[in-house]
């Protein structure tokens, strides 16, 4: 047992850190620090910088542009990326559909899609959730019917993150109504520009526009856009969801936010002195930092285990990372609310469109607190994670 990183790993951390220092556009970083949403251009610009460096799809196999890093190197890269902070690669392309394509797709599909995912020439979105299919995803109803060399797709997806920017969607569609619900699903990809695709924004309680409803009305899709085998889509979806394990804890994000809280708490006054001098606040902050340290160690245990024993089947420890990681993220946004106190109230009428760059740093604290309620809901709600632990770990 040894907690220390090797000399090589430490040097790698320095390399990553200095690359971010030199290459992340300062405005992009500032907006992330302040909890603002980025424009499409800001994100794509940064991802292309990352891809040019060869780090855009770091965890892919090397033949498709991956780096061949060890699991510890991936951990370091993610932690530095989150805590600098810089935008994380677009998960829908890089972490989700990319691995499905290089694992289950044919050569033609690999050639066609993978380089464009890496360079974000195509912005991908995820067509999984439906109005009636949240935690019970396999009950989905969106239908794809085979007609000659085409699929005809009808139905509705929802909570589709950043679909307003998307060029492509990967979709779970029902292709066999008679099979058991998990067995009749196929994994189909198609252009968001196709005729019959309609995107409607959903405004969330923070006032932001991250998620959308997406409607399919007799959308025609070439048959060859099926990934893998017909009616095997559920397997690919499970593979996709189990792929992302350790990033889910978002330790770097919480670290960065805690540093910011400590910094602000040294400036904002309460009872005539900086709020950091208030013992009750200070202890609450320490409590959160301790929880985060424990989570970081739990994450490192999973990382080290993967490094030694390979990724194998999904590790139920990822449910621990999801539950604690989301709770801690939410606690950090609560602490920010506490620091800002009554000045949480003013509403930033200019929103995040970048039209009011001078808007003061307080504007996004309440929206960020509201927005972060999502983290214990998405990606398998924390209640679903508890079901997973009960079943897969405790055998209940």
């Amino acid at each position, binding site marked *: *047992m*040894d*907690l*220390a*990183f*090797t000399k090589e*790993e430490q040097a790698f951390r320095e390399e990553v850190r200095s690359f971010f220092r030199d290459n992340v556009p300062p405005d992009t970083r500032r907006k992330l620090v302040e909890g603002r949403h980025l424009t499409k251009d800001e994100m794509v610009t940064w991802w292309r910088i990352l891809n040019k460096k060869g780090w855009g799809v770091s965890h892919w196999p090397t033949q498709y542009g991956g780096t061949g890093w060890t699991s*510890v190197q991936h951990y370091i890269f993610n932690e530095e990326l989150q805590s600098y902070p810089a935008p994380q690669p677009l998960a829908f392309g890089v972490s989700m559909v990319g691995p499905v394509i290089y694992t289950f797709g044919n050569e033609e599909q690999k050639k066609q899609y993978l380089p464009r995912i890496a360079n974000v020439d195509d912005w991908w979105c995820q067509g999984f959730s439906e109005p009636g299919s949240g935690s019970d995803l396999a009950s989905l109803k969106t239908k794809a019917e085979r007609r000659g060399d085409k699929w005809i797709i009808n139905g509705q997806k929802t909570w589709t993150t950043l679909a307003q920017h998307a060029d492509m969607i990967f979709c779970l569609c029902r292709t066999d109504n008679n099979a058991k619900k998990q067995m009749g699903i196929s994994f189909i990809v198609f252009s968001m520009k196709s005729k019959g695709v309609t995107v409607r924004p959903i405004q969330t309680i923070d006032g932001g526009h991250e998620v959308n409803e997406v409607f399919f009305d007799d959308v025609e899709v070439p048959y060859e856009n099926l990934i893998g085998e017909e009616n095997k889509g559920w397997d690919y979806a499970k593979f996709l969801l189990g792929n992302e394990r350790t990033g889910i804890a978002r330790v770097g994000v919480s*670290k960065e936010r*805690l*540093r910011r809280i*400590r910094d602000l708490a040294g400036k904002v006054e309460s009872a005539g002195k900086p709020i950091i001098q208030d*013992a009750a606040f*200070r*202890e609450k*902050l*320490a*409590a959160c*930092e*301790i*929880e*985060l*340290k*424990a*989570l970081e*160690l*739990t994450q*490192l*245990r999973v*990382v*080290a*285990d993967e490094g*030694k024993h390979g990724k194998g089947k999904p590790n139920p*420890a990822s*449910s*621990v990372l999801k*539950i*604690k990681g989301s709770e801690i993220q939410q606690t950090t946004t609560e602490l920010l609310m506490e620091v800002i106190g009554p000045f949480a109230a003013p509403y930033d009428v200019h929103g995040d469109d970048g039209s009011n760059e001078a808007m003061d740093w307080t504007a996004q604290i309440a929206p960020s607190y509201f927005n972060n309620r999502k983290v214990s809901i998405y990606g398998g709600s924390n*209640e679903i*994670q*508890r*079901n997973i*632990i*009960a*079943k897969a*770990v*405790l*055998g*209940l």
Partner: protein
Amino acid sequence: MDFDLNEEQRLLKESIDGLLTDSYDFEQRKKYMKEKGGWSQAVWGKLAEQGLLGLPFSEADGGFGGGGVETMIVMEALGKALVLEPYLATVVIGGGFLRHAGSDAQKAAHVPGIIDGSKTLAFAQLEKNSRYDLFDVSTTAKKKGDGWVIDGEKFVVLNGENADTLVVTARTKGDRRDKTGIGVFLVPANAKGVTKKSYPTQDGLHAADITLTGVEVGADAVIGNPEDSLALIERVVDEARVALCAEAVGLMDESLKTTVEYIKTRKQFGVAIGSFQSLQHRASDMFVAAEQARSMSMFATMANDFENAKERSNAIAAAKVQIGKSLKFVGQQSIQLHGGIGMTMEAKIGHYFKRLTMIENTFGDTDYHQRRVADAGGLI
């Protein structure tokens, strides 16, 4: 970075787990409790035979040169089996003072007896009003010729009834809460002027309140600097805290396991109560709490080797906070999920709960350590 045990450590774990499986089930434990001093000489002898009592001592001192990970393995196993024997008092704390600051003569006088199981120690530190502050010492040690005369009262001294030698903290200079002027003394338990009031503790161990009245010891009784040993005391108590964290992880593992087994078999409304989602989620939260505790126990074990004493103490305090929170949740919910049977002396789960509860209040509780971390500027 590596969280796996090496081959030797794996063998160590197997050997102690094997020993305790054979000789420490819940019924056997009840018998050991009734023996003199509240624990079993025979089990202690077996621990000595397997070399476990000599584990952390250097080879030069006749030990095996084990480090923090080895102690963690042993303490976890002792926790899992709810062991009564005075490993913490004798090997971790008493032995810790000797390892860190004992003279060659002191080591020669005490270490062989610890290793072969013929001697046990006890740490006489807590005072009526000192609570968790290690520097809060009213017991005095006054110079007399070459030696010292010790006067004062110590409380809840674990293994105080049985120990051959007491490790006593006493003030040689200054006022009650001064950070300098504190010394550490080896006092034979049968020295003139030592009186003991022994009693069982809530968690089934044994402790004693000890009064020292004009107890005379020689110059050779002093461990380290008699006027400035707070750093030494903090060092050894930090190691004790790390050991307690590991013991608590073992206790939590066993509590969770026992509880999950129980709800799988206990039937109500015609089904196992473990099929109810409210209970499944509670058990899942217990698992999360136990895993977070395990992570921090490992962190504390590794932090124990940090060169910077402040960083070391801060990390160990943080671990004690996490362990305190986790053990309270796992302990309380273990009783809750057992229902009425969890309230009985007869069921083993309550005894795990009690030991866990006492660990929280030993060498600083959650609030105490949380304040320490907060005042040290946090952990990020």
